[in-house]
């Protein structure tokens, strides 16, 4: 589904990713771990098409097509979802209205008819019920004044609606207490099906107790320095990153 080949990328002339290769197939969950400043969030931004980050060499193929030059909205419409570490607050934009716009943009792209507000509300309610979210999420403005946990839940709700093929969750666990983490992780697990793929970017192993990855990669100084199965995460948790990065 996603093929990253010897990717070099950075922003403002600084090369941050220095040759990353990664292959993610349908039905797989990959965890990308690494110390602060290793390039985890940069990778997420490059994958989502952030204009400040440029690919200097290498390529990213999504379903066989090169993503170079593809805008953020087209990536989203084609099924890539980026779950933010710090979801942006947008005061004045009603959450439910925004969700409907995003949902309908997807429908239009697929050549389908847009959902009217009533039908959309039914759909939204069903997703919210599934995730155990209160009605207040519909009434409030997009992430405006949300707590860290609320923002992440709202990201999960967006993922539930948009049903991406590939979801990249950037530090979804950061800033969450254990209860909020469990809610978000449960949500992600419910949404994850075998025809989808998931990339979890995280600093801590804790998230991986709830969402079990098939593969774990360690990123350091812009390179993947070790890949392995789930057990690698436990090793990292026990020993820290030092034993890898000092090599």
């Amino acid at each position, binding site marked *: 589904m996603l093929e990253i080949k010897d990717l070099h990328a950075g922003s403002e002339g600084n090369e941050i990713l220095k040759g990353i290769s990664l292959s993610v197939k349908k039905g797989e969950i990959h965890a990308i771990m690494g110390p602060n400043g290793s390039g985890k969030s940069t990778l997420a931004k490059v994958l989502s098409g952030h204009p400040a980050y440029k690919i200097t060499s290498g390529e990213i193929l999504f379903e066989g097509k090169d993503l170079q030059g593809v805008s*953020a909205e087209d990536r989203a419409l084609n099924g890539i979802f980026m779950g933010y570490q710090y979801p942006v607050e*947008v005061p*004045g934009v009603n959450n439910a209205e925004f969700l409907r716009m995003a949902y309908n943009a997807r429908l239009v792209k697929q050549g389908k008819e847009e959902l009217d507000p009533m039908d959309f509300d039914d759909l939204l309610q069903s997703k919210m019920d599934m995730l155990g979210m209160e009605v207040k999420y519909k009434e409030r403005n997009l992430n405006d004044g949300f707590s860290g946990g609320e923002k992440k839940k709202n990201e999960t709700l967006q993922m539930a609606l948009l049903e991406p093929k590939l979801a990249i969750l950037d530090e979804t666990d950061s800033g969450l207490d254990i209860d909020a983490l469990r809610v978000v992780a449960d949500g992600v697990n419910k949404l994850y099906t075998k025809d989808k793929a998931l990339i979890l970017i995280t600093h801590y192993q804790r998230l991986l107790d709830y969402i079990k990855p098939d593969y774990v990669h360690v990123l350091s100084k812009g390179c993947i320095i070790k890949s392995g199965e789930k057990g690698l995460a436990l090793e990292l948790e026990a020993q820290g990153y030092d034993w890898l990065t000092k090599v």
Partner: protein
Amino acid sequence: MTTTTTETANRPELAIRDLFNKSQSGNKTSPALKKFNQAALEKLEALKFPDRKHEMYTFVGTRELVATEFALAASGTIAKEQVDALIYSNSKNSCLVFVDGAFCEELSDISALGAGVRLTPLSEAIEQAEVSDYLLATVKDENDVFSAMNGALVSDGLVLEITENTTVDVPLQILYISSESKTPVLHCPRILIFARRSSELNVAVKFSGGATSCFVNAVQDILVEENAHITYSQFQDDSAWHFSKLRTTQKRASRFISSNAMSGAHLARCHYEMWLTEPGAELQLNSLSVLHKEEQAHNYVQIHHQAEHCTSTQLFRNLVDDKGRSSIDGTVVVHPGAQLTSSEQLINNLMLSDDCRADNKPNLKIYADDVKCTHGATVGQLNEDQVFYLKTRGLSEATARTLLTRSFAESMIQTAPSPQVAEDWRNVLLKKLGANE
């Protein structure tokens, strides 16, 4: 005011004296009102119309206005249907309508207001010492020549009294509407509200439908007595010259919450003069302007903290496109002894074109040593992080930008005191943004 500006320097003031003489000769109003008119005229002549260097009019070009020869408006007629369409659905039986500056009883409906609200024509109320003393005191301290001009030329107005402990259950709407006129006319509406101790009132003021040759020069005074709560909104939506002054005086533990919107005009200016005179008074002032084409909207704000433990917060948002111009000139004065004052001012400008202009001049004058005062102003384009966030959810660049532009206004619209007022603002202001897509 006259079309010739070359002769004597005080020519416009002479033109006002001329209008004053005309209004007084045909006027059967009370001696007390005449005395007030006279005092205001003298003040006007002492203040003089502003030149470019006038501190209060730094950002507001009044030359064209002062050079225009206006006649005092005879009250025109407005069809009832036109008025009905402008009355909010929750104020059908609690509305005061002014046509061309004069109160129109036939178009007003106060049946839902109850006995706790007393309405008196200004010409009658001014015979009471309390009213005349107050008005004469405002003339004495007046610093704005246009407000003095209203005082000199006002032939009548309305005094509202909300009696002690009265909670007015329905929102009161005050509608100022102007009829079409081929020649330049001047309207001087005036309202004075006494909110007595522990009273509560929600009042929505709307200026509507001025013709391009019409100059609306309004003054509204509101006295908020001990523990009284006023929720106020003002919507400037006239396509004329618009000047309005809102002067409030707040007593102990009173609240005045104000949400205003300006849709701009050839030249629109709101002057706020707010006095917090006793401890514990709370003032909120929110204002939104949405301007395009060559519209202008200016705000001049003076907030006086005269007592301890008072709070004032101001939030201004201006959305300026095309060749629009906005300005906020806002001063907070913390008078000696007004300890533990808390005052905040924030101005956000969203500039959507290369030719628009937004001026901000925040001022703090602090004469007490234990206070918390902040001010800030931002000028910018849309937040690119927000644009990107929306794009990663599949919205196009254009849709994201439109949505964010609307949201900049919408977050202020949500401060409107009722859904009806909010909807009205939305219909007028957001439509302008739509036209520019």
